[in-house]
């Protein structure tokens, strides 16, 4: 449905009947089928969909960057009336970066690591404009200023690894917009970024777009991001368009069943409050208790090779996990949440006291430590990396039993079969290899592997972060069911505040290695006290176009460093109880 005032403006980009196919061992299979849409100057069109929907491959086709075995088999990609799909490389190259530019998902790997930022920027300018190096440099510094990077002239001489992820994505945006392209394709531009950085980058994109009248195609799986930025939305599934409309329409009255499912699966802040389960009571012996636990790494070297600096990855962290409880640990990358998980599992050395089932871990003998490992299991973020690609998944799930010499082969087999059924897989799938499964299925396998030793505590380190929202919802439901049935505790680590609100009983918010706020879910989400917690909550995109917030306008520097000279430990903030066990750091 097209709103009348938009229909007057001729489309800048018109995609008609686009079909993109992959040729794999002689078999041609369509990835995108008969896709049509228009893009008008200055508008933001979101292409939303889950993995495999064909949204990214569509953007690569627009750029003329399809992989060698993938090609446009029919349809047209008209940019100002010129069909990009039929353009030879010699005529496509001058358009790329100048008329139609792109930014990618992974800012950490999208810049050349051995070239200075400045060289990469000026190169992009000089590839299209007949200007001198000095003129290009002036333009590049101006482009960096436009994306609100602090000290742009100095950044020109820095290498990508010296900048944070958010800064690198700003550099990518500066590079893409330096030549004022008519169309900017942003492929999951904020997916790899922390939520507060995501907020800054989205606002930046919106401001620059308003200033330059660039048309933006935003490709994303995140309906919250769609709601906050898009004018119009295309929903794709398995290479087909399932729904098209304005953002308001799509969110208020989705027509396609798939869109409705997608929206229903999106975790929303505030939704957790409806789940009024009581917080498990304190027990005489907690499952795990940390008392002023710290982890640090030494770096740098002086003349004698001794370290000069110390990274305080976690500092004076104290909390306990009650039986049957889901305890959340939230914060942005580098805040120390995963470090605490590793210390708890005995994977990194720590200072301070960590007790598991009332026993301090540091005083255990070797066999006791092995027994302890049975009680704590982990489920990681990337299920593909966490499974041995050459091991059948049934064997992978059975392996912990073999290592701990539990049961006869027949008993083990029976337990593994039972678990496969329990996590929603069939026992026939046990003899397959990891690559034959989808991401969600692989994570189910990892959960089965964690459960096989009947642990008392499962550490879920960003376990659902890499999954599509619909899959994420089913895996979260599975975790909840398993807990209700078996009664273990979870330590649930996540950067996603909406997911955390939906699953945890109590939680701690971490910043720069320290806990800044801790309490029950209702205390933290209903009455956030620490400024960092508030900022974290404010930054979460809301999947409702009617509630767009915009007020973050500040230049970006580097976040504070957890690196300190040896001997100068950072100050430990005191936690004060403001009532009912709600602890807040004094700032």
């Amino acid at each position, binding site marked *: 449905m097209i709103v009348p005032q938009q229909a007057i403006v001729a489309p800048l980009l018109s995609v008609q009947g686009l079909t993109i196919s992959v040729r794999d061992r002689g078999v041609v299979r369509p990835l995108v089928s008969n896709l049509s849409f228009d893009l008008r100057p200055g508008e933001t069109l979101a292409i939303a969909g889950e993995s495999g929907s064909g949204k990214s491959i569509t953007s690569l086709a627009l750029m003329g960057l399809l992989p060698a075995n993938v090609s446009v088999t029919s349809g047209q990609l008209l940019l100002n009336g010129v069909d990009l799909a039929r353009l030879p490389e010699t005529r496509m190259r001058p358009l790329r*970066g100048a008329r139609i530019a792109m930014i990618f998902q992974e800012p950490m790997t999208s810049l050349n690591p051995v070239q200075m930022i400045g060289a990469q920027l000026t*190169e992009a300018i000089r590839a299209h404009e007949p200007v001198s190096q000095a003129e290009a440099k002036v333009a590049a510094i101006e482009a960096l200023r436009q994306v609100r990077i602090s000290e742009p002239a100095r950044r020109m001489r820095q*290498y990508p690894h010296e900048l944070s992820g958010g800064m690198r994505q700003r550099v990518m945006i500066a*590079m893409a917009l330096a030549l004022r392209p008519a169309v900017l394709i942003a492929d999951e531009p904020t997916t790899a970024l922390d939520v507060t950085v995501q907020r800054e980058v989205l606002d930046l994109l919106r401001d620059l777009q308003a200033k330059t009248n660039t048309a933006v195609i935003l490709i994303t799986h995140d309906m919250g991001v769609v709601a906050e930025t898009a004018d119009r939305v295309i929903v794709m599934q398995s290479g087909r368009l399932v729904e098209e409309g304005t953002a308001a329409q799509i969110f208020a009255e989705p027509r396609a069943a798939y869109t409705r499912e997608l929206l229903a699966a999106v975790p929303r802040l505030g939704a957790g409050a409806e789940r009024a389960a009581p917080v498990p009571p304190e027990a005489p012996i907690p499952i795990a208790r940390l008392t002023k636990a710290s982890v640090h790494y030494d770096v740098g070297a002086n003349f004698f090779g001794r370290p000069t600096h110390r990274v305080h990855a976690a500092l004076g962290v104290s909390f306990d996990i009650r039986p049957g409880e889901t305890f959340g640990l939230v914060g942005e990358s580098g805040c120390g949440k995963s470090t605490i998980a590793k210390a708890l599992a005995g994977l990194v050395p720590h200072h301070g006291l960590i007790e598991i089932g009332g026993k301090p871990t540091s005083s255990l003998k070797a066999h006791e430590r092995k027994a302890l490992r049975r009680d704590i299991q982990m489920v990681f973020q990337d299920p593909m990396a966490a499974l041995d690609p050459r091991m059948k998944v049934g064997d992978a799930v059975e392996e912990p039993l073999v290592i701990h010499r539990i049961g006869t082969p027949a008993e083990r087999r029976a337990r593994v079969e039972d678990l496969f059924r329990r996590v929603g897989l069939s026992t026939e799938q046990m003899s397959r290899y990891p690559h034959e499964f989808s991401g969600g299925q692989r994570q189910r396998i990892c959960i089965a592997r964690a459960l096989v030793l009947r642990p008392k505590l499962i550490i879920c380190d960003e376990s659902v972060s890499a999954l599509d929202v619909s899959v994420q919802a089913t895996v979260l439901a599975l975790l909840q069911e398993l807990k209700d049935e078996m009664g273990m505790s979870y330590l649930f680590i996540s950067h996603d505040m909406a997911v955390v609100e939906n699953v945890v009983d109590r939680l701690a918010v971490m910043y720069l290695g320290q806990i800044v706020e801790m309490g029950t879910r209702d205390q933290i989400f209903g009455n956030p006290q620490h400024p960092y917690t508030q900022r974290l909550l404010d930054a979460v995109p809301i999947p409702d176009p009617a509630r767009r917030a915009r007020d973050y306008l500040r230049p970006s520097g580097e976040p504070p460093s957890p690196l300190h000279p040896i001997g100068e430990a950072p100050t430990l903030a005191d936690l004060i109880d403001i009532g009912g066990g709600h602890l807040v750091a004094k700032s």
Partner: protein
Amino acid sequence: MAGYLFRRVLQAALILLGVSFITFVLLYVLPADPVRQIAGRSATQQTVENIRQQLGLDQPLLVQYGRYLAGLVQGDLGRSYLQRTEVSTLIASRLPASLLLMAGGILCELVIGLTLGVIAALYRGRPLDQGLMVTSFVAVSAPQFVVGLLLLYVFAVQLGWFPIGGYGTAAHLVLPAVTLGIMGSGWYSRMMRSSMIEVLRQDYIRTARAKGLTRGRILFRHALPNAILPIIAMIGIDIGIFMGGIVVVESVFGWPGIGQLAWQAIQRVDIPVIMGVTMVSAGFIVLGNLLADIVTPFIDPRIKMR
């Protein structure tokens, strides 16, 4: 940086100490008797014993080694048993020829290896790539004396393009350098191919393409500098392999370097010369690796010296 260098030099000294001890012990337990070589077959038992005493070879192993080490730290490599000359003089007169040969060999293997590796990567999976990889496999597996003799036969004897052997002009250098470099070029082409393929699928190459850069610029400014990084550390290790290679190549081509010197010394159990060549070679290997490590941070800004 200063601290790093200091520690690395200290490390190098320890490595050289270890090499000297192991080589010394090996030569000591060798059944061949150097004194018999010096004295000749007709010498009396008395003469043999005199010479043995004169050279200090009647002393216990540790005393002998201690004396050698004492000389070594003062830069004294001892005297040749057979040539009546200082070992250092012998090596100094032979070293330039060997260094020239090694430089030629390294140049040869890098130019051939890296070029073919890049071409193979760009034509990945196509017949040209497969052909090049079979060739490189042959280059890696062919023994150097076979390659040397083959090149001599074809280019010197049959075609007469290059001299058969000897030393002096640039033409003399070509065949020995190619022989020395051909094995390494096989290794480098394979390494460069896989490194290049890895780099070509990196996100920053996609970024470079999205910027609208030409193919040439993407290749030379973005792909090559990244692909070559893992190769640099290899060049340091290569010097060690070359030290073995020059013994064979110098013998085949009659090249007057330290390889030939070592070969003659081994045949005649001239222990001070063997020790001397070993120590100098070890020194170069250690130095090569050290240089590779020092150069890397200048090319890869992510690496810092510790």
